[in-house]
């Protein structure tokens, strides 16, 4: 019994971590390059809608997943135009995107699906596939532990890839440098604007993927409140993980675990679901209070950079 419950918990963690993790990896890019992106929540929402809508139109979950990411990237571009080219207040631009993107998602849903703010449910065959499905008997420990959505594994691999990019490539070194001392980088001939553009658009793309995962795997339908603060939790995970991809992974696993506990505990109906729903948010705060101590924020984070003329 214990083993079975443990298996279920691991399964729930693996199911609820990927959207957080993808968005958090995106946030890593943006924050390390010196641009605060609190529009991630909105970018996830538009990704979730476009993902669901594409799956309904074209029937291929992987295309839908990618297009969901592109929709997020589009808003990443918007954020970059405001924050990098126009030196806007990054928090305000992010807030604008949190109005625009979800508004647009629901607007399009109503325009396309006869005034309904929810999309129709996606057929199971159009959902993102699971790997190791059917190898172990249903309900067994190993089935619970290993039979996860392919994107869950993909996002784990992505952490390693992004770690490599951050610390072992020239681009990674530059993007970290741009977030610390853009003026110095500029003097050395590094194109600060271009690196920041790439990073912010990437953060939108990864957030969009995270949102699309929600509609294409866990929920199989778009609803206006589908993201419920996960974008912000992803930002928390990045701060908690000290702005490192590997740190963000650990934080996301913790939050994903909390989300999993929430879903499992809500279905058992023992405690008020509303109280259980608070757990991830309270854990986030506690995690920040107890463990983070002094997270060193990239020095140029949030400061607009204007190239000297």
């Amino acid at each position, binding site marked *: 019994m214990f083993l079975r419950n443990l298996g279920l918990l691991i399964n729930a963690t693996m199911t609820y971590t990927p959207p957080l993790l993808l968005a958090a990896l995106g946030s890593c890019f943006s924050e390390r390059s010196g641009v605060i992106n609190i529009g991630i929540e909105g970018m996830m929402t538009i990704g979730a809608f476009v993902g669901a809508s594409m799956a309904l139109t074209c029937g291929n979950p992987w295309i839908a997943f990618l297009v969901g990411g592109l929709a997020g990237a589009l808003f990443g571009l918007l954020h970059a135009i405001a924050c990098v080219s126009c030196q806007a207040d990054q928090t305000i631009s992010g807030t604008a995107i949190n109005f*625009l993107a979800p508004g647009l998602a629901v607007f399009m849903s109503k325009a396309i699906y006869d005034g309904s703010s929810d999309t129709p449910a996606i057929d199971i065959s159009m959902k993102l596939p699971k790997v190791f499905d059917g190898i172990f008997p249903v309900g067994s420990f190993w089935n619970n532990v290993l039979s996860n959505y392919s994107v869950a594994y993909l996002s784990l691999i992505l952490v390693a890839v992004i770690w490599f990019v951050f610390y072992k490539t020239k681009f990674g070194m530059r993007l970290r440098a741009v977030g610390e001392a853009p003026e110095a980088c500029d003097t050395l001939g590094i194109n600060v604007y271009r690196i920041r553009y790439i990073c912010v658009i990437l953060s939108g793309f990864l957030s969009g993927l995270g949102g699309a995962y929600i509609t294409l795997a866990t929920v199989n339908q778009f609803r206006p409140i589908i993201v419920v*603060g996960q974008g912000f939790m992803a930002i928390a995970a990045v701060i908690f993980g000290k702005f490192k991809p590997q740190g963000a992974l650990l934080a996301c696993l913790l939050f994903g675990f909390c989300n999993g506990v929430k879903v499992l505990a809500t279905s058992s109906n023992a405690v008020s679901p509303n109280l259980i729903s608070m757990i991830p948010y309270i854990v986030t705060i506690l995690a920040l209070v107890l463990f983070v101590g002094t997270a060193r924020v990239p020095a140029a984070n949030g400061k607009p950079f204007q190239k000297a003329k």
Partner: protein
Amino acid sequence: MSNTKDKSTNSFGTKVLQGNLLYTLISIAVGFIVGAILLQVAGISAGAAYGKLITGVFGKPKFIVWSIVYASPIILTGLSVAFSFQTGVFNIGAEGQYVVGTLAACVVGVFLKVPAIIHIPLCLIAAALAGGLWSMIVAVLKVKRGINEVLSFIMFNWIAYYLSNYAVNIPALHTDGNSEATKDIMDTAKMMITNESLQEVMGSGASYNILVAILAAVVIAFILNRTTLGYKLKAVGFNRHAAEYGGINSNREILTAMSISGALAGMGGACQLMGMGMRISQFSAQESFGFQGITVALIGSTNPIGCIFAGLFYGAMKYGGTKLSLVNAPSEIVNIIMGTIIFFIAISHVFKRLLLSRAGKKEAKGEGGTK
């Protein structure tokens, strides 16, 4: 003579170019244009939708009254955000403070049996305390542990959201009827206009909660511009290090500012409850009064009096938006318009720089010509 007149119009022109109002108005115009394009793309007549918006707000006196009733809580959350901006803090947690404020006012409004003259202030005070406390926790985390307030505010928004949903289902507070809501607050706690002849003109929804909002705006304007506290708060917002060098304890000022900011948002919740809602219903999504407050603060250029007008604008848009379904236009277009407006306000300084430098060049050219 003509020369001096020229100069005065010129300086008026540059004044307009240097102020924020022009750019806010341009941003609002752009917001409506973007909205219109989207509506047309979606196959909905923008003319019909905007026409409905206008007649929906100004068509009858009671519509205007409704818009004002809608505006009151948003003015207060807007003031809350604007006040925090003045001290260099971004109160994105007005949403949560609003929710706990509503909850506190609801508890006092349902359980206390006192005459209206005491009941209404008590509800407002309870809401202000709850909102202030909710925000102060975040402030303490920021000041003592250096935790980014934007983040903890957002977490506290969600905690407040589920707290409210939990409270709605507590048997003592839950309505005896079937709906997923609390009991109605006592009549003595309602801020409704009960005079029948006035109701005939203004409709049955007429409330005087706008008075609380206007009073709060005036008080906040006074604090910011005429008191030592306001001076200190603005000094911290302008340059924290310089303020500390000048002997201001910036941590204490931030605590004070965030608490006051939270109290304002909490009062916004009370205004909504006592002037419009009368009960708290189970949330299925965030009510967004706090986020709307951010828009109001930005449109009002973080000026308390500006927030009144910006709030009235938002209230009208929100009330008018509820009628858009009559012409089959999604009410989300309001969010899109508002998002576009914030976006353009965020980048407006680019236009400002552009226009100012052009005006400067023109001036130089003009002077050169007369010489």
